[in-house]
């Protein structure tokens, strides 16, 4: 037992959880914690310029490192500014712990200065919220928060700390274990379900593996590829699953969904779909009722609530993806006749479809087209590198055209679709992986939402490369208006300002504007090696669509390969 303040207990507890970096911005109600940080040598604090960025950075850090990301803000507006980042992490099952200051206990409920009911606000967008009323509770709460955030289906956890609890001195004890009555994630698959699934997969004529973010979260990369090779099954990924198999693997068919490519065609022909760590988002499936109606579906997920939520599973398996994949592999190897595993006809068909669509996915040479730039980026970036995207056309072009070759090499806001996520997330990712290049692929619309944290990138010395596909419009909205609203461009023109080169330079970053693909190649190669953040402004055609796409309300069969002229 040690006598210390709640604030000190928080810092010590964080260190015991292995935290090395905290992203945050101080304010009145969290002053005691920042005072305790003042003497701290082991914890690095990254001062952001907007709390939303602190949450996105923690998220980017978590996704790139596989560890829990930590962000911190004061009460009221500081806390509410975190919410977009917390909601983003929640939708994509990213483990972060958000720590907020709160007005003193005695003031709670009195509409005090900078008071917000952040527990009430955050409850629907977190796995759990804590609000300790005694400093003694802090070590246990921090331990539970990290345990809840990082186990089962990961997600954000909030710790809301009233200021008096931070200041309160108490005899502090640090617990070794976590005991939670109502939380016990089920990891092992049920053997009977594995048997049934193995049988179905071996008997399948045309098996298809749909891999989602759960594969990344459980680190089941090897197990996934081993099973796919054994079954000779093509692997398609969801947006969150992109990169769980190196995309140059011969069995990888790319992304499924609204902006999927050939994988959409192939999944429609499958007779058995093995879906792992996916939640069957509407952006992946298209219309729920017409998603592969003839196929039998095996659904592996650690969150039992995902089973039968959107798509009915024929064989549900509630388990950790890695353990389930390993169990399936072992079951097939040991107990099932291997004679049925020779599916040359199916693989031939898969390769035919891949080939037939290739011309649509190849970009035309010469002018600066978004797919062309993205393909150049791929060539210049090493296998080991991280591409972070913003949200909109840039994200979907990357989904279609950027081959991810490293697990976790693609970080994107999938579920919530948060514009402004990419840049701060890339800073968080770079903190986690200073050894490899981190690139934020942005649009001019998205980048402006969080560009103020260029300051953080310079002051804290976190060099990343930002490539702005600058079309002067909110591109995805404009595309929908072009395709589905008779070119009635309502409120999408951004006026081609600011001058991104000057903007970058104003912060002390480097800015380059390129006019052709050769300039881009040169600027990008230089930026990857630069020890300061570089912003590359790439003007592109505002009329360029992300294609193919599934029109809203359509099914995976309704792919549009060419733009509709309306």
């Amino acid at each position: 037992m040690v006598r210390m303040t709640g604030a000190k207990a928080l810092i010590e507890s964080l260190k015991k959880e292995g935290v090395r970096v905290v992203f945050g911005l101080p304010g009145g109600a969290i002053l005691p914690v920042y005072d305790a940080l003042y003497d701290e040598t082991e914890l690095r604090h990254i001062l952001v310029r907007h709390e939303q960025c602190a949450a996105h950075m923690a998220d980017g850090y978590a996704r790139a490192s596989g560890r829990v990301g930590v962000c911190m803000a004061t009460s009221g507006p500081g806390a509410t500014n975190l919410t977009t980042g917390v909601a983003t992490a929640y939708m994509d099952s990213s483990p972060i712990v958000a720590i907020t200051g709160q007005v003193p206990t005695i003031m709670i409920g009195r509409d005090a200065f900078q008071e917000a009911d952040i527990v009430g606000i955050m409850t629907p967008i977190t796995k759990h919220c804590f609000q300790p009323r005694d400093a003694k509770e802090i070590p246990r709460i921090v331990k539970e928060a990290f345990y809840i955030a990082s186990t089962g289906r990961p997600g954000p956890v909030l710790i809301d700390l009233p200021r008096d609890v931070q200041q309160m001195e108490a005899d502090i004890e640090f617990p070794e274990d976590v005991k939670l009555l109502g939380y016990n994630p089920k990891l092992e698959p049920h053997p009977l379900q594995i048997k049934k699934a193995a049988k179905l997969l071996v008997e399948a004529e045309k098996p298809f593996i749909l891999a989602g973010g759960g594969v990344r979260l459980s680190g089941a990369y090897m197990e996934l590829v081993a099973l796919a090779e054994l079954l000779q099954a093509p692997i398609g990924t969801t947006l969150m699953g992109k990169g769980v198999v190196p995309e140059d693997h011969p069995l990888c068919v790319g992304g499924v969904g609204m902006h999927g490519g050939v994988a959409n065609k192939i999944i429609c022909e499958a007779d058995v779909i093995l879906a792992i760590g996916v939640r069957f988002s509407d952006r992946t499936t298209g219309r729920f009722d017409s998603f592969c109606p003839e196929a039998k579906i095996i659904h592996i997920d650690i969150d039992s609530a995902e089973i039968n939520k959107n798509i009915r599973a024929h064989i549900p398996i509630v388990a950790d993806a890695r353990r389930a994949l390993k169990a399936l592999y072992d079951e097939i190897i040991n107990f099932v006749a291997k004679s049925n595993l020779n599916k040359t006809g199916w693989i031939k068909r898969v390769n035919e479809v891949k080939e037939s669509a290739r011309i649509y996915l190849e970009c035309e040479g010469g002018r600066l087209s978004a797919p062309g730039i993205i393909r150049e980026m791929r060539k210049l970036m090493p296998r080991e590198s991280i591409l972070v995207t913003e949200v909109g056309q840039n994200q979907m072009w990357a989904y279609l055209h950027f081959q991810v070759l490293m697990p976790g090499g693609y970080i994107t806001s999938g579920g919530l679709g948060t514009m402004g996520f990419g840049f701060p997330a890339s800073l968080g990712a770079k903190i986690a992986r200073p050894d490899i290049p981190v690139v934020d692929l942005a649009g001019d619309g998205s980048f402006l939402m969080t560009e103020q944290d260029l300051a953080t990138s310079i002051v804290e010395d976190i060099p990343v490369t930002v490539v702005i596909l600058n079309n002067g419009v909110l591109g995805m909205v404009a595309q929908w208006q072009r395709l589905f609203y008779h070119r009635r461009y309502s409120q999408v023109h951004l006026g081609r300002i600011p001058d991104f080169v000057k903007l970058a330079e104003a912060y002390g970053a480097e800015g380059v504007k390129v006019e052709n693909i050769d300039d881009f190649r040169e600027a990008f190669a230089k930026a990857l090696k630069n020890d300061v953040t570089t912003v590359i402004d790439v003007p592109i055609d505002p009329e360029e669509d992300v294609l193919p796409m599934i029109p809203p309300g359509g099914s995976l069969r309704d792919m549009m390969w060419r733009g509709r002229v309306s």
Partner: protein
Amino acid sequence: MNETNEHIIAAIVEHKPGVLFKITNLIRRRGFNISSISVGSTENPSLARITMTVTGDEATIEQVIKQLQKIIEVVKISRLNPSESVIRELLLIKVHVADSRARSDILIYTQIFRGRIIDVAPDSMIIEVTGGSNKINAFIELMKQYGVKEIARTGITALARGEKSLK
């Protein structure tokens, strides 16, 4: 399979501030319908029992249970099969009493329903009735002819019969 029905869900939850908010907020956010909810303490002071009546088809009920299960403070949750459970609700009803004829009629009905008169005023009475929802509804219907001034219902609470228990 798609039949919409009332289902009874019982949960044992940690007795902590904000738990009821979490449960009702989740039900609201996922668009589920609850027609009643009752909360009370259990034999263990750190746990509380919540009983809910939820309207929906099989798939909806499955989702309600799975989503509620994810709340950290929800220790146990299950669906109660009405035919294998004891289901009770408490009704307090204040009825207008116009004259002595009405008073004696109400007294007889109360006896038939095994209720109790718990308050008498010159022109009204409060009656307590417990039972399943059908019985409670029937009693309210009967009282309407005299003029119902106020009703308070607890919502149902229930236990599985015999050996089964939520613990």
